[in-house]
């Protein structure tokens, strides 16, 4: 099993992802420079958080044109697992690998704190080791995390159980007060129709060590490794 972490100019959570995969997930992992296009040998890619291309134009908009993204699209089309975190989620939306878009938070704040998210379904390669309905405490850190999509897209997402994480209160209720950025239907993370590409605003790689306040992010990586092992 091998993980890859694509690195764009301005990525800044790439080392966090690498650290967690190598130390806590216990799997081999490589950094992949954004100009590389050879993704053979990888089972899963983690598109890291940060500010690729300085968030110029729109968050994630320019990273989508990096050479590696063409390879990521092919990788995903062949069923490879892709986990986009924060800026990684923004990049996947801009690249058309996930529907919708992420716009400015409804407040003007850069929101940087632990939030609660409810796992909506265990029917994904990324959550199959977590019971549906489980509330995870995972930090967010973003200015553009306000998920938007049209009505038709939302219907599709709900109908196909593609909403994987929803912001919620500690008891699991997806209240408006628990929504840190105004995201439609409290959406914190979605997957594609084929369920092998997941984007999420919270940072599970920052929630894998008790010392840092939570290890609730581990279940996501554990699910992914179990899925790959079973394949």
């Amino acid at each position, binding site marked *: 099993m091998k993980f890859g972490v694509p690195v764009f100019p301005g990525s800044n959570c790439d080392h966090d992802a690498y650290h967690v995969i190598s130390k806590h997930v216990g799997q081999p992992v490589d950094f992949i420079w954004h100009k590389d296009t050879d993704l053979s040998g990888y089972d899963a890619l983690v598109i890291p958080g940060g500010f690729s291309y300085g968030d110029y*134009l*729109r968050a994630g*908009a320019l990273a989508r*044109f990096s050479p590696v993204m063409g390879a990521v699209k092919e990788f995903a089309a062949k069923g490879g697992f892709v986990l986009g975190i924060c800026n990684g989620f923004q990049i996947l*939306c*801009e690249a058309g690998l996930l*529907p*919708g*878009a992420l*716009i*400015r*938070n*409804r*407040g*003007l704040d850069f929101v940087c704190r632990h939030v609660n998210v409810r796992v909506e379904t265990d029917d994904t390669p990324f959550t199959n080791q977590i019971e549906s309905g489980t509330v995870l405490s995972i930090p967010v850190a973003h200015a553009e995390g*306000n998920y*938007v*999509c*049209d009505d038709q897209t939302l219907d599709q997402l709900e109908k196909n159980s593609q909403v994987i994480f929803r912001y919620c209160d500690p008891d699991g209720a997806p209240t408006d007060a628990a929504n840190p950025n*105004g995201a439609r239907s409290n959406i914190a993370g979605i997957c594609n129709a084929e369920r092998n590409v997941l984007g999420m605003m919270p940072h599970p790689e920052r929630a894998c060590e008790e010392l840092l306040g939570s290890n609730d992010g581990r279940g996501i990586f554990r699910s992914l490794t179990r899925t790959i092992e079973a394949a």
Partner: protein
Amino acid sequence: MKAKVYVTLKSGVLDPQGKAIHHSAELIGFEGIKGIRQGKYFEIALDEGLTEEEARIEAEKLATDILANPVIEDFTVDISRSA
């Protein structure tokens, strides 16, 4: 040829930046401003050999592929001869 591309948020898409600017305008005494929506403006220098129609097609393709995100934004294109 020169293309001017204006990218604006679709109506209904929240614009916290525009709201904040509006709020500041009110704070310093502007009255009668009903709302402010922030957008983006691009000046694109195009090959002088292009016809106006060709320039428009090129600029609209650029706007569609890169400058605007069709999920949340609309755009308009103006073509003019470079001064």
